[in-house]
């Protein structure tokens, strides 16, 4: 058992208001540069929708992630969907799976100068749209959030790859005015345990830090093969067209190393994001990624370890995990949601990269139809809110849709989670002082939870203090430095020398 610590983020999708403050914070901090205009290391998508880049979940087209090959060779060998062995060499200089700028969008701005320099006329001038890359006039036809709030739904929402697995009636309901529904899905790099980007790089320029699991691109080693861009199934590595290097979300490690949450997390208006340490067993990764679809979630959760278990603590210490980090893992809100209460899931586990960022699936309003001018709920006439626990399909967001996103198609997992969340909501509405009515307590038990757990979930969801939401351990940089250099020498030399910015050919 090789225990390591991992910095993980959790998104509570019930709270996301789709304001994109996270995207702007990341953009202002990291990608406001030439060559990075089209990059959104953090982006927010409207779901159902096509996402950014367009239809990134279509791995038949983009060839991202890993493939599980049943009965291949001595064990079910995992293979990069992008290529393997000789196929990789053949594609090295011409990778047909590489997304092009059209899959993202052409960044635009406006020729504001025209407002001053237009020729004299009898009508006021206007600033026409131009490309940020070429400077030439262009028609604006795509963007990083083009289908926001179901804009263009006949095209973009309808072509959401997750809708392929929906029953026909359910799929049709998503286009009907009284039944239409949408949610927001913020995404960053998942800093996976089994990253396809790391595996795909021919130069070995991408690596995963052992101390916290952050996946980074070494821009000195990067040779612009862009296999990482194609191999990432979440399309969260981007190519900088100006420097000729690949870039990605760095989980704001300079902020984390100084005790601050990543910019996206810190700036989140809806306070949907949680940061915490998870302890995981690195030895289990080859096995956990290598099981049939139905077993993926169970194996993945087993890879995450109990930070209170003495055996785990001993193994962590033996492997160099600092006591502060073990303590942080014990207070980790991500651990509570993912493993203790089991209401959070990673995105698209079937890509087998073992994403380490988690989502709590959203509750949604009850389906309704308009009959004779009145709104009728798709429940019995005498609507008891308990009824929702028995009829989760009455919710507008199809269970199958959430299952396609978060549980490798396993509806039972989503039902269990939604039932627990409804039960918590019911309990908090109905509890009076110390005594709660038996029917409510029964509903709680049926949903697999207790009053104590419901209170705990409620508190961490709605009333967390900033330092309960972001539990960040001290990074002890001095000890990391110590492993490769005399700290006093480092201290004396820090700040001298020059950093070479990334550029082609370096």
């Amino acid at each position, binding site marked *: 058992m090789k225990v390591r610590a991992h910095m993980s983020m959790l998104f509570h999708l019930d709270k996301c208001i*789709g304001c*994109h403050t996270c*995207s*702007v914070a990341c*953009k*202002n901090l990291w990608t406001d540069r030439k060559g990075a205009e089209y990059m959104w290391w953090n982006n927010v998508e409207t779901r159902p929708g096509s996402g950014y880049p367009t239809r990134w979940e279509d791995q038949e087209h983009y060839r991202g992630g890993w493939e599980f090959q049943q009965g291949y060779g001595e064990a079910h060998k995992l293979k990069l969907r992008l290529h393997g062995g000789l196929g990789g060499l053949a594609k090295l200089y011409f990778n047909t799976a590489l997304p092009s700028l059209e899959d993202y969008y052409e*960044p*635009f*701005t*406006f020729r*504001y100068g025209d*407002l001053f320099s237009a020729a004299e006329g009898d*009508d*006021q001038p*206007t*600033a*026409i*749209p131009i490309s940020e890359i070429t400077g030439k006039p262009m028609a*604006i*036809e795509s*963007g*990083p*959030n*083009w289908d*926001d*709030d*179901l*804009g*263009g*739904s*006949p*095209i973009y*929402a309808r072509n959401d790859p997750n809708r392929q697995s929906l029953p026909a009636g359910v799929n049709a309901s998503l*286009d*009907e*005015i009284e039944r*239409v529904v*949408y949610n927001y899905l913020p995404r960053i790099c998942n800093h996976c345990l089994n990253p396809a980007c790391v595996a795909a790089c021919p130069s070995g320029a991408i690596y995963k830090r052992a101390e916290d699991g952050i996946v980074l691109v070494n821009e000195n080693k990067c040779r612009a093969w862009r296999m990482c861009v194609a191999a990432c199934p979440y399309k969260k590595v981007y190519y900088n067209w100006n420097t000729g290097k690949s870039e990605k979300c760095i989980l704001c490690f300079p902020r984390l190393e100084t005790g601050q949450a990543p910019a996206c997390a810190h700036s989140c208006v809806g306070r949907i994001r949680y940061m915490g340490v998870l302890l995981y067993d690195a030895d289990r990764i080859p096995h956990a990624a290598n099981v049939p679809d139905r077993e993926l979630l169970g194996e993945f959760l087993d890879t995450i370890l109990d930070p209170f278990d003495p055996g785990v603590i001993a193994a962590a210490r033996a492997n160099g995990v600092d006591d502060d980090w073990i303590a942080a893992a014990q207070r980790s809100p991500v651990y509570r949601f993912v493993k203790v209460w089991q209401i959070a899931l990673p995105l698209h586990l079937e890509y087998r990269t073992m994403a380490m960022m988690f989502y709590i699936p959203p509750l949604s309003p009850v389906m309704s139809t308009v009959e004779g001018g009145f709104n009728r709920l798709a429940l019995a006439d005498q609507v008891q809110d308990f009824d929702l626990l028995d009829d989760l399909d009455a919710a507008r967001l199809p269970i199958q849709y959430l299952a396609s996103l978060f549980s490798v198609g396993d509806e039972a997992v989503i039902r269990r989670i939604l039932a627990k969340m409804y039960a918590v909501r019911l309990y908090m509405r109905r509890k009076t002082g110390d005594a709660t009515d038996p029917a409510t307590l029964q509903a709680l038990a049926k949903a697999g939870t207790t009053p104590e757990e419901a209170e705990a979930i409620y508190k961490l969801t709605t009333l967390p203090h900033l330092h309960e939401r972001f539990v960040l351990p001290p990074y002890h940089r001095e000890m990391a430095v110590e492993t490769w250099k005399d700290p006093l020498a480092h201290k004396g030399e820090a700040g001298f020398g020059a950093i070479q910015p990334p550029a082609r050919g370096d």
Partner: protein
Amino acid sequence: MLDELQHSQAEAQGRLMNYLTPHGKWSIHSTYSDNHRMMTLSRGDYPIWLNDKDAAELGIEDNDWVELFNDNGVFVQRCAVSARIPRGTVFVYHATERTISVPKSPLRGRRAGMNNSLTRVRLKPVLMAGGYAQFTYAFNYWGPTGVNRDTNVFVRKVEKVEF
């Protein structure tokens, strides 16, 4: 209500729809409506939202240029076609200014307006009392206005956009 359609009715063919201008998602009225981040994260400018079935009947596809007109003014912008808009309704989020990416109106020949060009204030005693808005000046004073934003417009597709 319909007296702002009398002239336009004779002018050109267009589908009569109810016009609403809800508060914008990416701005506070016109403040920040031209912010580059917000424009990139939406459609480059606040689009005209149309119901998908209405758009199909008018031969309008997502991101086509569309013209809204009535007796008060004219507005030309690209559209967002969506199943979430009720039939017979057109949304334009409030508010953008007339400086960025505003084409000429094919109908009336001059530069098109902004979303308030289609609305109008109907003066009434309630607007005259209290010393608000147009009757008040103070440093940084922001007062309420009496614009009636729930009105009716004609909708038609723009075949060729001209800036």
